[in-house]
C-alpha cells in the first residue's frame, strides 16, 4: 500500500508491528515497555494468541470474575494486565490491536479515557464503513447491541495506550470460565455472555479488518513497519512490567475466600 507523499506531510510517525500467534503476556510486556520507555507512537497488531488465556484488568478479583473451579481444573492461565477495564478470554480467534501514542500525537485530543475511546472509534468507523451497525456503545465496540471488541487503556503523564481484543471468533465453551460481572454496561441488560457477544467473522475477514485498520491509521499517522527483533534487541533490562500471570496459589486462595464467604452466609441465615 503506497500513501502519496503529499499526504505524509504533517502527520506524525507511527511504527507498526505485525505479529501472529504471540503469547498475550509477552505482548502486554512489550506494550507496557513501549508505553513507559519509548517516545514514539506505535501500533501493534497480533493476529491471534496460541493458548486460551483469561486476562483481567488491573483491579480484577478472581473470586468475583471467574468460575474458579473449572479454571483451576482446566489449568487456564490467568493474567492481570496493567490497564483498566474488564475480563476477557482470548485465544487464536482473537485479533489484538494496540495504539500507543504521545499525548500530542493526535491534534485536539485530550489524554483522558473518553476522548481517547471516541477517537479510536473513528478509526474503526472507517474500517467498518457502517457494516453491521458498528459503533462505540458505553465504551464497548458493538455491532448493534452485541459486543465484539473489549478495550482498555493506561494513561501516563505524556502518553497513552488504547488496546483492544477483537472477537473475530471464539469458543463457546471458553466463555463458561467467566462470571457475569457485577459492573456491566447498561445495554448488556443482564444478558449472559453468549447473548451479549458476537463474532466479527460474520461481518469482515481477518485480512480486511487488519488491512483496513492500518489504512484508517494512515489518516492520522505516517505508518511505517518495524520488526519485533529491533525492539527486542533494544529492550531496557531495567524496566519491569507489571502485567503478570497469577499463580495457582493465588487462584486457589480466591476459591477459599469464596467458599468461606458462602459458609458465613449459610451459618448466618435462619
Amino acid at each position, binding site marked *: 500500500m503506497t500513501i502519496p507523499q503529499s499526504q505524509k506531510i504533517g502527520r506524525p510517525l507511527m511504527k507498526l508491528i505485525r505479529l501472529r500467534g504471540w503469547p498475550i503476556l509477552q505482548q502486554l510486556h512489550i506494550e507496557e515497555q513501549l508505553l513507559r520507555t519509548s517516545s514514539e507512537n506505535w501500533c501493534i497488531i497480533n493476529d491471534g494468541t496460541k493458548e486460551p488465556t483469561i486476562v483481567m484488568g488491573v*483491579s480484577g478479583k478472581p473470586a468475583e470474575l471467574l468460575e474458579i473451579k473449572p479454571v483451576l481444573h482446566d489449568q487456564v492461565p490467568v493474567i492481570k494486565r496493567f490497564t483498566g477495564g474488564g475480563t476477557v478470554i482470548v485465544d487464536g480467534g482473537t485479533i489484538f490491536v494496540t495504539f500507543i501514542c504521545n499525548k500530542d500525537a493526535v491534534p*485536539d485530543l485530550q489524554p483522558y479515557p473518553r476522548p481517547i475511546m471516541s477517537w479510536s472509534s*473513528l478509526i474503526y468507523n472507517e474500517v467498518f464503513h457502517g457494516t453491521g451497525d458498528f459503533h462505540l456503545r458505553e465504551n464497548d465496540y458493538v455491532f448493534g447491541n452485541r459486543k465484539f471488541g473489549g478495550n482498555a487503556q493506561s494513561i501516563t503523564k505524556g502518553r497513552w495506550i488504547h488496546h483492544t481484543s477483537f472477537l473475530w471468533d471464539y469458543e463457546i465453551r471458553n466463555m463458561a470460565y467467566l462470571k457475569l460481572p457485577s459492573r456491566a454496561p447498561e445495554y448488556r441488560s443482564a444478558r449472559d455472555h453468549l447473548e451479549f457477544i458476537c463474532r466479527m467473522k460474520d461481518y469482515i475477514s481477518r485480512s480486511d479488518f487488519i488491512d483496513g485498520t492500518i489504512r484508517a491509521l494512515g489518516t492520522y499517522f505516517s505508518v511505517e513497519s518495524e520488526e519485533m527483533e529491533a525492539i527486542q534487541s533494544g529492550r531496557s533490562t531495567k524496566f519491569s512490567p507489571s502485567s503478570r500471570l497469577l499463580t495457582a496459589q493465588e487462584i486457589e486462595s480466591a476459591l477459599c475466600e469464596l467458599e468461606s464467604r458462602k459458609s458465613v452466609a449459610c451459618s448466618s441465615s435462619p
Partner: protein
Amino acid sequence: MALRMWASSTANALRLSSKASLSPAFSLHRCFSSVLDGLKYAPSHEWVKHEGPVASVGITDHAQDHLGEVVFVDLPEPGGSVSKGGSFGAVESVKATSDINSPISGEIVEVNTKLTETPGLVNSSPYEDGWMIKVKPSDPSELGSLLGPKEYTKFCEEEDAAH
C-alpha cells in the same frame, strides 16, 4: 485556614478536530471545575496542601471530572519516597488506569486507606476526603514552582479551550 472556591469557566467537552465527527453520546459538558484557595497545583492536575511538616496530595476536581467514575485507586505503602513529577500510584476509571504524579519530593508518611473501599471519594471530595498521600517534603522550595489557584484555573481553561 479559610478556603475559597474559585470557579473557572472551564468547559469539559470532548472536542476533537473539525475533520472528526463526535458521537453525541460522548459529549460531556460542565460549566466549571472547582479550584481551592490555599492549595498549590501541578500541570498534571494534582494538588498539594502544605500544613506544617506534612503536605497532603490528591487529584483536582478538573482531573476527576475528566476521568469519570473512579473505581479503584492504587497507592503505595507508607515509608516509601516520592519524587517531584514522578508517578506514585494510579486511579482506574472508565477502563483506564491513569498515573498519579507527585507535585513534590519526600517521604510518604500516610496513605488514605479509605480509598480502597470507597474509591468514589476521589470524585465526590477530591480536595478533602479524597486525599491520597501525605508527604514529609524533602525540599519545601519545590512548592514555589507549582501553580497557584488563579494560574491553575487559567491553565485548565486554556487546556480545555485548546481541545
